[in-house]
Each structure stands twice: as structure tokens, then as C-alpha cells.
């Protein structure tokens, strides 16, 4: 009897929690989900205005990037009700649109007079539309971003290093303009003693589990001429993915990994790069523009940090990052969520968003005459956004990404096979996925 009573109590307590957990606060509340990084903190600041204006309490769920996709896609696929608003990665649009996880915003935009032409076209294309380029909008461009580079201005300005570099390479020690220059500069700094400690050339992305090495390697592949398809929309990857140029780009990325990165840099993404740079281990660091405001204010290296756009080679290109803000279609607070979107789209809010550390994609901000001087990296940012390329945004993007992560990491870090074999294998993997999807026969 005693056991039975205890069991009953436990079960009822559990059931109570189950029920209690389901009932979201009836008072106006919105949960916004994003990745846990600097811009998210800025958004918390910004949203205080919205809270004051609307009386809605904003709650935030921030998940670190390595776990963000996994967690949020799981959330959406299991019908979770955690998020009312989701600032999801650009690659999720295909899947989220087709499965109706995101609310289609066209009607809302029309009703409220929010025009997509007010936002930079590249961002609208990348963050809002599905199918790509069609006027079907599933998100409002929230955070423009691309992969850029940080470097130690103070080291680059040391006269003895400048002299040595000039003697060796017959050009000035300055932010590299091509990947070949990048490699030489990285080699120059590798294992050099500066201010009493040994430093290394560059911190690049090599993370295996989520998307790190893909984002890193594409920064080299795109400038060399890598393409996903010969003809957009036809899934004809042969000759685009594994062209001789693409092979050269991938080999360059591996060469830099092998020659010029800090020890133990085999599974590194944003956080590890930031740590390496802030602790004075590397001369150059690859990372997203999103981190630049924070780095500029860093107590140790803020004053001596410079920025440069992703080096070109055959063409100028940068890996696209950035996200749009979407309404999760099974939210309990649809009106509140839409109100937030409406508020966020206003030009003055976008301006404040930019000032606080977000990267607004609104034309009024970008075209403002003062924009170029608003932050130390503003010119580089505009430069980058002019030539961004994104990964597949298909609904099956996760399989495609998985394939690329494995092939790239196998080649670059685990020394398996040649670059050509890796890219050929990648085409095989992707072909299989597209066949399963019915996009290829």
C-alpha cells in the first residue's frame, strides 16, 4: 500500500509537471530562439525597446552554434513549442518552408507595408526566399553576415617584421589580397617569437561535427572558382564541384592547415578561433563578421585588431553567413510574434540594431553616408556582402552538409586521399542524396 501510494504520488507529480509544462504563460510572452553569440546579446538589449512599447515579455533561448542546428531542427521536427520566433540559419529555409515550420510572411508584409525592396537584395535572396529567388518570403533579413578575417595590426606594423617580409616576398606586410598571399603571410608568422612567446600563422575552421570545416574550406573554394552546379537548378555538379580550380582551392586550404595553424587545431570553429586570437596565439583568424564589434572592444587585443575581407584568387568571394528572423508556425502567440517582426523591420530600429552590434540588412542603414565610418570593418563588410555565396539551402541540406563535412575533414585533417578524390566522392554523396529526393533521376 505504501509503495502504491508513493508511486501514485510520483506519477501524479510527474503528470502535473507534464500538464503544467504545456500551459505557456497566458500573459503576453514571446520566446525568441537564436544562436548564443555576441549579436544575440545585442538583440536582448535592443528588444528592451519592444518590451517597453508592447508590454510583451521577451524570453530568449540561445544555443551555442555547434549545437544550434541539431537542437532547433530537432525542435521543429518534433513539433516543439519552445520558440515563437526563430532566427534560423539561412540553410534551413528550404526544409522549414516545405514542412510549413515557418509561417509564410507575404500576406503579413503586404498588410503592414513591409517591403522586401527595403532590404539588400543579396540578403533577401539568401535569407528570405524559397524557392530561391521567388517572391515567397519565409523570413525577414535580420543579420547580414559573411566570413571575414581578423589580424594583429600591431604585429603587421612592427618595422623589423615589415623589413623582413619585404625582403622575402617583395611586397609590403599587409592584409593579404589572395589566398596565395595569405599562405605566405601565415608561413611568415608560423613559429615566430613575438614579444617572448611563440605564435602561429592563422586560425581557420576545422570543426567536424556541425558545419565548421565546410564554412572554412568554402572560403577558399569560392575564390578559386568552386561552384555547386554548372547550371543553377539542374544539379549538374560534375565539373563545378570538382573542377581543377576547386581542387586547387581545397589543396590550398589543406596546405594552410598543415603549415600554419596552432597545435591541436583539429576540431576548431568560432569559439576556438576567438580564444586563439584573444590569447595572442595567432597572427590572423578566420571568423564571422558578427564577432568583429566584440573583438574591437576586447580588453586585450581590441585596439590592435584589424580586419580584412576574405582574400580572392580568381574571383572575389566570401562564404555567406547570416540569418533571417521567422515566425514559427505552431506558436501560441502569433499576434505577438508578428508584432515583433513589424517592430524589427522599422528603419530606426534597424539603425539601433546596427549600432548595438547586429548587422542590419536594411538599405537605409547600408546606404547611409555615415555607414562606412560607423565601424572599423564597415567597408570590408560591404565588400564581402557584394560577393557572397551560400551553401545548398535544399530541404535535404543536412545530408548534403554531413557529406561535405566528412569528405573535407577526411581529406584536410585525416589525410585521406587527394583533394580530387575528396571532391569526386562529394559529388557521389550529393548525387545519392538528390536521387533520394527525386531531384535527379
Amino acid at each position, binding site marked *: 500500500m505504501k509503495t502504491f501510494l508513493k508511486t501514485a504520488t510520483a506519477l501524479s507529480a510527474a503528470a502535473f509537471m507534464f500538464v503544467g509544462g504545456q500551459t505557456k504563460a497566458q500573459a503576453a510572452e514571446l520566446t525568441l530562439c537564436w544562436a548564443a553569440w555576441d549579436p544575440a546579446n545585442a538583440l536582448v538589449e535592443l528588444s528592451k525597446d519592444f518590451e517597453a512599447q508592447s508590454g510583451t515579455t521577451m524570453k530568449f533561448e540561445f544555443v551555442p552554434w555547434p549545437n544550434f542546428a541539431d537542437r532547433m531542427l530537432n525542435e521543429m521536427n518534433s513539433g516543439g513549442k519552445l520558440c515563437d520566433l526563430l532566427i534560423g540559419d539561412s540553410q534551413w529555409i528550404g526544409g522549414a518552408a516545405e514542412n510549413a515550420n515557418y509561417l509564410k510572411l507575404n500576406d503579413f508584409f503586404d498588410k503592414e507595408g513591409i517591403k522586401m525592396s527595403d532590404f539588400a537584395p543579396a540578403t533577401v535572396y539568401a535569407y528570405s526566399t524559397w524557392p530561391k529567388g521567388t517572391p515567397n518570403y519565409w523570413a525577414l533579413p535580420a543579420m547580414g553576415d559573411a566570413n571575414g578575417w581578423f589580424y594583429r595590426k600591431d604585429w603587421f606594423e612592427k618595422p623589423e617584421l615589415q623589413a623582413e617580409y619585404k625582403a622575402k616576398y617583395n611586397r609590403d606586410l599587409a592584409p593579404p589580397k589572395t589566398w596565395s598571399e595569405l599562405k605566405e603571410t601565415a608561413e611568415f608568422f608560423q613559429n615566430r617569437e613575438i614579444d617572448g612567446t611563440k605564435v602561429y600563422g592563422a586560425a581557420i575552421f576545422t570543426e567536424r*561535427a556541425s558545419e565548421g570545416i565546410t564554412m572554412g574550406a568554402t572560403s577558399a573554394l569560392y575564390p578559386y572558382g568552386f561552384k555547386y552546379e554548372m547550371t543553377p537548378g539542374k544539379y549538374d555538379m560534375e565539373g563545378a564541384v570538382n573542377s581543377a580550380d576547386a581542387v586547387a582551392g581545397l589543396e590550398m586550404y589543406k596546405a594552410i592547415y598543415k603549415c600554419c595553424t596552432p597545435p591541436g587545431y583539429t576540431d576548431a570553429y568560432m569559439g576556438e578561433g576567438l580564444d586563439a586570437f584573444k590569447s595572442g596565439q595567432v597572427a590572423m583568424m578566420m571568423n564571422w563578421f558578427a564577432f568583429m564589434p566584440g573583438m574591437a572592444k576586447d580588453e586585450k587585443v581590441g585596439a590592435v585588431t584589424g580586419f580584412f575581407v576574405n582574400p580572392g584568387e580568381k574571383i572575389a568571394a566570401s562564404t555567406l553567413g547570416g540569418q533571417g528572423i521567422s515566425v514559427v508556425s505552431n506558436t501560441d502567440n502569433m499576434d505577438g510574434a508578428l508584432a515583433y517582426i513589424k517592430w524589427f523591420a522599422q528603419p530606426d530600429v534597424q539603425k539601433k540594431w546596427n549600432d548595438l552590434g547586429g548587422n542590419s540588412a536594411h538599405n537605409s542603414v547600408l546606404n547611409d553616408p555615415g555607414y562606412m565610418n560607423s565601424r572599423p570593418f564597415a567597408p570590408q563588410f560591404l565588400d564581402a556582402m557584394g560577393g557572397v555565396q551560400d551553401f545548398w539551402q535544399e530541404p535535404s541540406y543536412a545530408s548534403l552538409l554531413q557529406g561535405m563535412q*566528412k569528405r573535407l575533414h577526411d581529406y584536410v585533417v585525416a589525410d585521406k586521399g587527394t583533394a580530387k578524390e575528396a571532391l569526386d566522392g562529394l559529388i557521389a554523396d550529393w548525387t545519392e542524396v538528390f536521387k533520394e529526393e527525386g531531384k535527379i533521376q
Partner: protein
Amino acid sequence: MSTIDLLATRAVKATPPALSKAVRGLSDKTIAWIFIAPTIILLLAINIFPLVWTIYLSFTNYAANRPNRPVMNVGLKWYRDILGSPEVWAAMQATAHFVFWTILFQTLIGFGLAYLIDRKFKGHAFWTTIILIPMMLSPAVVGNFWKFLYQPQIGLFNYVISFFTGIEPSSFEMLGSVMLAPWAIVIVDTWMWTPYVMLICLAGLRSIPGYIYEAAEVDRASNWRQFWSITLPMALPFIMLAVLFRGIENFKMFDMVVLLTGGGPGSTTELASITLKRQAFEAYRTGYSSAFAIILFVAVFGLANIYVRTLNRVKQR
């Protein structure tokens, strides 16, 4: 009178006579089924029904992230794909390597420790408890902080090795090297679970009756002889049991390795469960991963079955 006694008696007294009679009247058979039913129901609901569902899914092209797509029968396609896939075989190989070496090390060290502890030196109970602590941790959390320990620049491991062998700490990377990463995961698992094997072996050693040794002493058998003819054979069932449990657990290993290496470098430490997780919950190829799950289950079940039969024969000896 113990608390349970007190409460039980009170419960009996408080039960109204009608109910009491009804309960008393319950036959043994009824009681048996009442006692077993909740367990069986729970297992049917959470283990068996899902298993059957998985078998069904393994013949379809269902994808959990596309619930509205029409589900088609694909027959044995997934099974053929998996059994012919080099990636799957690589994962099985990585898993086999992991299982073999961890069991070997844990058994040797675990049994050794148990034997030494059984000498009953002063304070052995305290030190036994200390040794047990690693196995109380969450494997996921362990994988996470060993990643920190294995970092060549800022982690403890390389510096300790350097201290003892003089090798430069940043000259080798446990987690980034194709040669060393499989050993890195073996080391961490051994660190965590040797205490478990030690406990089982200790129980085995303690179960050997004293009179057998006394008889051997009378026969003037040497310590060495006693170990080989008495200790080891009598402890063998327990050792085999430890091997069985650890083998099954390490075959299923996921959390510690995925947080430690993510399956890397490349796919060097991508164990079967990691491949399964990526197919099931990142690519959402539900049909494919269901087939893989069934294959894994059959493999473990088959191996365990054979092993348990052998174990029973050893016990009978």
C-alpha cells in the same frame, strides 16, 4: 518493530474488511500477474512496440522531417545499402577496435586491482571508494572535459606525458591525429570503467570460499599454483560477466566519443552509434537508420547469445 513492519501492519488494519477479504482471497496466480503486468506493459509499450515499428520503418523511405511526404515501400534496399557501404563497415571496424581494446585493458587492470584490493591492506575500503568515482560521472560530461584535458596547448594530458617522457607537449595531438585518436578514446573509457570491472572481479574473488585455499595450503601448493588453479578459474565467470556487460555497453557507445572527438579526425573514431545518430537525427533518413538499428541489434543480440551460452557452460564447470 521496523518502520516497514509498522506501516504494513497499520495498512492491514486500516484496510476495510471487505477489501481485506477480497485481497486475501486473491490467489497466487492473480498476484503473480498483477505483479508482472505493469512491467510487461511498460516494456511492451516502450521497447517492443517501438522495435516492431522500427522493423516496419526499415522497409520504407520514411523521413521524420518530412511527415507529409508519401511513404513508399523500398523492400530490402536499405539493408543492401548498409551491408555494402564502406562507410558503415569503417564505423563497425572503429567500434570493434574500441570494444576490443577497452575490454582488454579494463579486464587486465580491473582484475589486477581487484586482486590487489583483496589483499586487504589497511584502508582498502577507502581507496576502493576513491577508485569508483570516475564511473559515477556522466559519459557525456567526461567526453567534454577530456577534450579540454587532451588539448596540446592548454590541457593537462600532454604536459604530464611530457613531464615523464620529455616529449614536447605540442608535438602530438591525441584527438587530432589519425594514429592517436582511437587510443585517446580507449584511454578515456578505460579510465571511466575499470572500476566497474574491478567491482565485479572483487565480488568474484570474495565469493571463493576460504576452505579451498586452506586445503591447497595443506597440500603445499605454491601461491602461483593456487592463483592459476583456484583463483582464476573460480573468478572466471565473474570476469566473463564483466566482459559481457562492458562489451554490450561499448558496442553501443555514443555520448562520450561524440563529445570527445565528434567521430573525427575525419571518421577515424566514428563509431556505429555516431553514424546512426547522424543518419537518424541530422539527415533524418528514418528508414535507412531503422534498418541500421535492426542490423546492430541483431548483431549484439546474436553475439551476446553465443557469449551467454559459453558463460553458462563455464559456470557449470
